[in-house]
């Protein structure tokens, strides 16, 4: 029978966040030796993680700004739910083969269209004017008046990004193509900058084909510049890296 004392010692330190790098490597080695089917190892890890999480409740609760929950909800991309909404069980109707085929076709058309259309700002504008991007993604109630939309391209290091909006009105459409992955555990975060003050916008992750099509509930009236940085997953409240794309709206 395999002795679990050593791995338990490492797992306990890891759960508390106090494991040193050398021991973290030792834990990986031990884990490999115990193998993927080590039920005791799994139970130890779950239980020590559980205990560590509960230790937080030894602290007296701290006041939280009343606005924080609204700020979090405002930071989500679209107003009708979390990004994981697609993971929710679909309705019977939407699960039907016809509906699935329809969605696949729309998705495929959207991706192909984005790849073609956002290669340049002018082309992007044609897409907006043509309406299929809006129709595919936003439905008929989009707040954007396409005929009045202003389209601005980002000066980007890789790939192409453009933003479309109607001055003075809420609703900003961000389109991207050829964008590399921001890396594991990272996202692209959009910033709306007025003077020296960046306001966090949405966090985006390109699709497998490097495309982005997102409607943002924001108004760019006082925004001088938009920028995109690479940030940790979960987003940042202030940029932590140099912009990889910048758009001058002034």
């Amino acid at each position: 029978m395999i002795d679990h004392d050593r791995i338990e010692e490492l797992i306990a330190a890891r759960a508390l966040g106090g494991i040193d790098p050398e021991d973290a490597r030792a834990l990986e080695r031990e884990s490999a030796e115990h193998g993927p089917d080590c039920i005791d190892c799994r139970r130890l890890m779950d239980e020590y993680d559980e205990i560590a999480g509960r230790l937080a409740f030894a602290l007296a609760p701290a006041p939280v700004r009343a606005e924080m929950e609204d700020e979090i909800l405002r930071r989500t991309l679209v107003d009708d739910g979390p990004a994981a909404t697609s993971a929710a069980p679909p309705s019977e109707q939407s699960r039907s083969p016809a509906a699935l085929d329809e969605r696949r076709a729309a998705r495929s058309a959207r991706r192909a269209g984005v790849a073609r259309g956002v290669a340049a700002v002018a082309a992007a504008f044609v897409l907006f004017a043509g309406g299929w991007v809006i129709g595919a993604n936003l439905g008929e109630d989009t707040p954007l008046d396409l005929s009045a939309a202003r389209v601005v391209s980002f000066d980007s290091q890789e790939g192409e990004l453009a933003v479309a909006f109607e001055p003075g009105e809420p609703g900003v459409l961000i389109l991207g193509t050829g964008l590399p992955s921001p890396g594991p555990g990272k996202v692209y975060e959009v910033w709306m900058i007025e003077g020296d003050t960046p306001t966090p916008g949405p966090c985006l992750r390109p699709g497998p084909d490097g495309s982005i099509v997102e409607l943002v509930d924001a108004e760019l009236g006082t925004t001088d510049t938009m920028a995109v940085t690479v940030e940790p997953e979960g987003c940042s409240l202030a940029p932590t890296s140099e912009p990889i794309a910048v758009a001058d709206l002034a």
Partner: protein
Amino acid sequence: MMTDGPLVTQRRARSEPAREATVPPDPAELRDADLVRAMRRGDKDAFRGLFRRYAPTAQALAQRIVRQQFLAEEIVQEVFLAVWRNPTAHDPDRGSVKSWLMGMIHHRSVDVVRREEAQRRRAAEAIPDAIDLDDDPGVTVPEEIGLPEERKVVRSALAELPTEQRQILELMYFGGMSQSQISERLSVPLGTVKSRTLLGMRRMRTTLVGMER
């Protein structure tokens, strides 16, 4: 920083329940799980419910570790935003919602402490105050039913630990210090720090999880 190595990956790939059912389900945990399920459908009220229930503890934990209110707020925002965006990340087979949430707050706070040079210096210069286990934690922030009892249980479990074990657990968890940093700080051999960590955690496990090894 926490490792997320092969063992974790292997564990995630498995589907059988991780814990033996030795205690009846906690009603508060069942309610938390319901909230997370509702969030998967985009239910904002469910998010607000979860946030109001746990954000004060999350804020307290982050603040305790990073020692700066604005940084703590940022961590709390980031974690709850990540939860709102991806509530499916919680695996009920692996642990409670509250531990999952606090685990993320803790990981991120420790990351911040270790990343920021100034924070590291602060951590090295000052041993965090011990937690006052006699303090009544429920008086400053209104809480939902169940959490004051949870605080009582956890604080009581910590209070029962021998002082030298509790000190190490607190430095590690609430101070964001590694075992080698604690060894250096307390002038105690590293092996002693490790053994006290294990003994303390085993005792907490016995008390909180109810499983005798």
